[in-house]
């Protein structure tokens, strides 16, 4: 198979959400002498971009994004040892701490954002759900992220996004990070109102916004 053809098959394995196929193709790539970093960036990752776009416009849904994420992870896991052996690395695009705010247990949206950011080379620390402002603060101190992502699905817990920002300000750490907010009741106006840096509408939008926020590093 030509290299070009192999890249297309890799992308397709991610689009179709087939982890075993992705794993097998990753092995084939190595056997064919393709650089593991190229296999990721030219082959598998473009498939994830395609699914991300489809998700953003309602042609793909949560299960599609999740299975594609699994396929991409499987490919990267297969390629990782060779990446390490060759002292290559995916460029770490930035560090992100993400979580659903206190009182809120909705996790799917947040998890999708984490998946898409990781797929795009970000180092993501997912704190889970019902995360207190103090826990966000601890994570900022521990991981020194570039971006903090706050998810809230309820109008009533949305206020806790502001609580996190206030906590960061009081600790003198607000300026060390960019804060991005998301979730159904959030909006660009809301982000502005509470002094967040940005709002993202969905996982695909979040990647675009986080890339913009970290570009000026």
């Amino acid at each position, binding site marked *: 198979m030509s290299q070009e053809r192999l890249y297309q098959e890799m992308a397709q394995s991610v689009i179709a959400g087939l982890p075993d196929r992705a794993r097998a193709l990753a092995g084939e790539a190595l056997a064919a002498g393709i650089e593991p970093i190229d296999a990721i960036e030219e082959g598998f990752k473009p498939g994830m971009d395609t699914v991300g776009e489809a998700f953003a416009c*309602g042609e793909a*849904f949560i299960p599609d994004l999740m299975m594609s994420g699994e396929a991409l992870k499987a490919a990267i896991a297969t390629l990782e040892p060779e990446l390490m052996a060759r002292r290559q690395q995916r460029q770490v695009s930035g560090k992100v701490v993400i979580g659903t705010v206190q009182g809120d247990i909705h996790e799917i949206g947040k998890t999708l954002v984490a998946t898409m950011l990781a797929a795009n080379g970000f180092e993501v620390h997912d704190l889970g759900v*019902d995360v207190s402002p103090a826990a966000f603060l601890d994570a900022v101190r521990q991981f020194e992220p570039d971006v903090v992502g706050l998810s809230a699905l309820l109008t009533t817990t949305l206020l806790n996004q502001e609580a996190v920002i206030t906590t960061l300000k009081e600790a003198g750490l607000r300026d060390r990070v960019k804060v991005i907010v998301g979730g159904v009741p959030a*909006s660009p106006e809301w982000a502005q109102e509470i002094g967040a840096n940005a709002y993202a509408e969905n996982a695909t939008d979040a990647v675009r916004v986080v890339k913009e926020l970290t570009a000026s590093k």
Partner: protein
Amino acid sequence: MRTALNAGRVLIADGATGTMLQGEGLPVGLPGEAWVLERPDVIVKLHRAYLDAGSDLILTTTFGGTRPRLARARLDDRVPEINRRAAELAREAVQGKAYAGREAGPFVGGDVGPTGEMMSPLGKLTYQAAVDLFAEQIGALAEGGVDCIWIETMSALEEARAAIEAARQVTDLPLFCTFSFDTHGRTGMGLSPSQAAAAVAELGVDATGANCGHAPEEVLDFLPAMSAAAHGLTLIAKPNAGIPRMVGRQAVYDAGPERMAALARQYVELGATIVGTCCGSSPAHIAAIAAEIKLR
């Protein structure tokens, strides 16, 4: 209840619970189910507020009443008790003398919401485990005396199937199953209104429809699709009172009582015979809907 359903009478359901309880002091982050135990007086008071506004069918305060949801509030050791008690409180509410003269009901629906866990293979919850979780809740609701089981806000078809199977294992009560079409006209898991309706019709539910979701206007498209896919089933419309927007620190849902009443009239024209409201609504919305529907 079956008589009312078979006669095709239009029944007015109820509206939002969480935000209304928060208005009475329920702390953010504490589920309403906690107050089934701690503040039953407030639960009954809210039920009565909807009944007074015109609800013919009220839902038990058990949307988050499955074990995994209650575990988050460390109430998972009291799953059957909470569900049974919530049903008893709703029963107590409908037995008020003020409602005795009604033509139909008022009825109590056992509210069954999602477990909050993703079903395998995407997540860790197996089908059988899901069936067991729902059976535990539904059995207790039936014991508590509900008139029907209302599985709502479903997104994943597998989860809805598990809830329906569980219900059929433990009770013969009428069974409703509604879905939240909140993502480009489908559920978040990609299920379309017609797919959902066809699937649950085959499983023998008595009623299906749309609840929660995105904009209530979208339900005008969902109802015909569901009706076509599920011939003969009772149709339900219980959408949000619009789309939420933050105005300062307050959430405002942009469809007021008049708008929801006008939409309710259209839902009924499209064949819905159970109409209510979901997030962002209050007894005022139900009162407007009841007034509009009773004009027929």
